[in-house]
């Protein structure tokens, strides 16, 4: 059996490779037990349970990925004032008015609150149907709202011990006055434009659903 001798290619390390390395800082931890030495040096950050045996190449972002900077591209059908149908979450099936896209990529929407009870809220573009109906939102100023306005601020919960388990939870989520005034500031001009179109307020209040013979791919929104 005559064959060419196969020489394995020489291993050339690629420039874009992640090399696993870690600098470990230690902290002193008090430990109990008479014969355990009282303290122990413990790393402040634990080493991961897994790391690859070989160096892995770093994936270079594609042109589209690099351009978007991790922010979802807004669909062409969604423009300020578009009526959206929410498909998931607390308000699934409701219709809301789109205001703007926030820096994180999420959409800022409002009911308006006095119409359907949906406040100023962030919503993911992927869980939304954009209808071809829109409301004029030129009179609405949504510039002050960013991602920091929303979301639960991190509340560090101290661990409950003993009797604290039975004590009532003191923290109650009160709606700040700021939120209420902001809601009105956005909704009042919006309501005047909504009321100009007949049945628009009723439409925004109504819920969306599919009946037996309706197929969303065959429907025009």
């Amino acid at each position, binding site marked *: 059996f005559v064959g060419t001798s196969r020489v394995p290619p020489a291993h050339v390390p690629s420039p874009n490779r992640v090399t696993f390395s870690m600098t470990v800082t230690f902290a002193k931890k008090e430990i109990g037990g008479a014969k355990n030495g009282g303290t122990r040096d413990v790393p402040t950050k634990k080493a991961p349970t897994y790391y690859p045996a070989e160096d892995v190449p770093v994936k270079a972002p594609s042109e589209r990925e690099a351009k978007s900077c991790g922010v979802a591209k807004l669909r062409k059908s969604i423009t300020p004032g578009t*009526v959206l*149908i929410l498909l998931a979450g607390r308000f699934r099936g409701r219709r809301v008015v789109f205001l703007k896209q926030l820096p994180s990529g999420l959409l800022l929407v409002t009911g308006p609150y006095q119409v359907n009870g949906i406040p100023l809220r962030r919503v993911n573009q992927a869980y939304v149907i954009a*209808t*071809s*109906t829109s409301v004029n939102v030129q009179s609405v100023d949504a510039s002050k709202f960013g991602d920091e306005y929303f979301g639960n601020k991190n509340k560090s919960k101290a661990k409950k011990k003993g009797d604290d388990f039975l004590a009532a939870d003191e923290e109650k989520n009160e709606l700040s006055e700021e939120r209420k005034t902001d809601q009105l500031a956005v909704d009042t001009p919006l309501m005047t434009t909504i009321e100009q179109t007949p*049945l*628009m307020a*009723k*439409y925004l209040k*109504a819920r*969306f659903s599919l009946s037996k013979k309706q197929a969303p791919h*065959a*429907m*025009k*929104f």
Partner: protein
Amino acid sequence: PPSIFGVFRPATRLALLSRSMPFKRFVEVGRVALICYGPDTGKLCTIINVVDQSRVLVDGPEGITGVRRQAVNIKRIMLTDYKVDAILNCPEKKLKALFESEDIMGKWKASNWGKKLENRKLRLATNDFERFQVMLARKERSAARKAAMGE
């Protein structure tokens, strides 16, 4: 190939009808048909020649219905009540003039069949807000009917 159907003279047709044939619409030159399958679905066309047992040569006329001159399978068309006095392989311009003088499109749109197709198209084209408005209108109509029935 020469078509035998185009040679049918009105007299012969009357003779057939007088014998009370169960069929009223024939595959013949000048018959207006509706295309129900393929890229030209929903459009009217006129039969201007017969190719064989399964295909006919058809023309819109292109200027009025948008159907180009082409061979079409008989199974893909539905015959209508309308017929124009077209000659065999009628030129498109002449066919167009015939269509306009007989106002085939007007008659079609006024017919129940034509109206049904138009309604179906409109319903498919409604957007979400329009569907909502239609729903409210139907509720109103139903309420009005119930009130009238109550009297």
